């Protein structure tokens, strides 16, 4: 990809906006269309573009595998943990009403946290799957 100057410049320009859009879809999810799964995929696609332009090794310096594994587990734990929190507050599993001062506040908080957990896991797992395939037969950090 070293000789594709235009692609590299345009790609670099796009990556922050893709990430921003991912975050928008993530945190707008409880008001409009969106949510953790879609946001995670969009966010991970920024890293996929980075890999296509600069090679797996460069991207893995930014997002090392062990961090991705930790984040993917943390997302599941966050989701399940919200449910456990409602158990401890005396309600059924994943009942958001008890999480806040009043039911609507609790529902906002619960949905944001749960969707954030989904987003974390989806983004990191998609990156892990992509790296697993992209790093096969890898020579000198260039995808060819």
């Amino acid at each position, binding site marked *: 990809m070293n000789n594709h100057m235009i692609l590299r410049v345009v790609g670099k320009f796009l990556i922050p906006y893709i990430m921003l859009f991912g975050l928008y879809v993530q945190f707008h999810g409880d008001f409009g269309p969106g949510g953790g799964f879609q946001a995670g995929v969009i966010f991970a696609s920024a890293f996929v573009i980075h890999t296509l332009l600069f090679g797996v090794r460069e991207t893995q310096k930014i997002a090392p595998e062990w961090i991705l594994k930790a984040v993917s*587990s943390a997302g599941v*734990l966050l989701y399940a943990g919200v*449910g*456990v929190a409602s*158990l401890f507050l005396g*309600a*059924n*599993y994943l*009942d*958001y009403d008890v999480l806040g001062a009043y039911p609507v506040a609790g529902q906002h908080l619960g949905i944001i946290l749960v969707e954030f957990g989904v987003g974390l896991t989806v983004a990191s797992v998609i990156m892990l799957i992509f790296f697993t395939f992209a790093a096969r037969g890898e020579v000198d950090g260039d995808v060819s």
Partner: protein
Amino acid sequence: MLMHLPVLVVLAPLLGAPVVALMRGSTWPWVLSTLLSWFSLLCAVLLLVQVQSQGLVIYTMGGWEAPWGIEYRIDFANALLLVLITGLASVVLPYARLSVEQEVGTERAPMFYAALLLLTLGLCGITATGDAFNIFVFLEISSLATYTLIAMGRDRRALTASFSYLIMGTIGATFYLIGIGFLYVMTGTLNLADLAGRLPAINESSTVRTAFAFIVTGICLKLALFPLHLWLPNAYTYSPSAVTALLGATATKVAVYVLVRFVFTVFGIDFSFGMEPLAEVLIPLAVIGLLSASTVSITQPNIKRMLAYSSVAQIGYIVLGIAMGTAMGLTAALLHVFNHGLIKGALFMVLGAVMYRMGGTSLSDMQGLAKTMPLTFWAFVIGGLSLIGVPLTVGFVSKWHLILAAIELGWWPIVIAILVGSMLAVVYVGRVIEAGFFGEAKDPTRREAPAGLLIPVWILIFANIYFGIDTRLTVDIAEAAAAQLMAGGIVR
């Protein structure tokens, strides 16, 4: 705490899996997953006690009432299954440590235990939930975990075994999902109890009948009914010993439960057996399956593969009981689900111990085992007798009930088929026992398997004898479950 039991059974492995995946080495992941499986077993047993006093336990997820939300709906049938799954997990996990260190390796051990917990989670979820789509989600969780676990086998052929199961399993799950889609279009609900209430009015519609065909076929692929069983022998033969034990004892049994749930609760007996030719389709397949798979077992040089074919045959007995469409047949089927879980779990674990010491599970590795590894070998003998159906073992209890159910209907050819199947079991178990007693040991210096493997094996063997003598618990629960299912399962 007690009111949250239905979710706690599923929650323990869900919380454990991500933590275990992040650990290093093989000891701590093993300790944590073992403790969690014991916790799940405790919850499942308490839940069974609760069901015995209340008849039905309902748990609404997030406080959303069904049919809007997802509910967990525990009656006798799934309480029994939950005890079986968590019970087997509680025995297989302690056993796993040594065999995993040898067969999978320390490096991949955390991922192995995480996948094993996810498998338990998926199986418990399928069993506990009262929502058709939720069943699909848990089915996918357990299936994906199974594919990875099979692929961790030492033999390179584990990869192709895992891949062909992936293809077949996905087809099965897709068929199930298509059927659920049809039902959703017709009724606008995914809740099983709600579906059961709405379906009788639109029974005549071809969409519902198509949905029935898709769902039954899809599930029969997952439970490996002849001739949809081709994925099973390789998957069982090449996966790590601990995985084979858990899969052989629980995975197909959970699919049987889903079949029972749909045939009896959701669609109802009148529809399944009256309007649809369910018995006419399932009975020939079950009989051919149990006879042909038992015959094929006899010729297998690899004992693990022999037991895998025997599992296909046992599924034949279970499906036969379901296809009778009577309370007695259903009781026998549910009993055999539980009892065969105990039998196959024990036998596959014995083979794991043989694998650990001898490095293989072919008939030549079993030669002279009575002298070199007497405790392991006697466990195989007792488990094998239970598989045949000798009195004082669990295998006898369920076959006895199955024969009684067939006699009640006056189906004498079926009685003969069951007896012939048992005779074939005598032959294939017999040749292993013969090799063990009279064969010349390959290497007389090999010692008995370590206690870490033997204790879990013998716990299951004792369970085989205990539930074979004291049948009150299992028979009572199976009868109560069958009565509930025959009544349509709508106990409010």
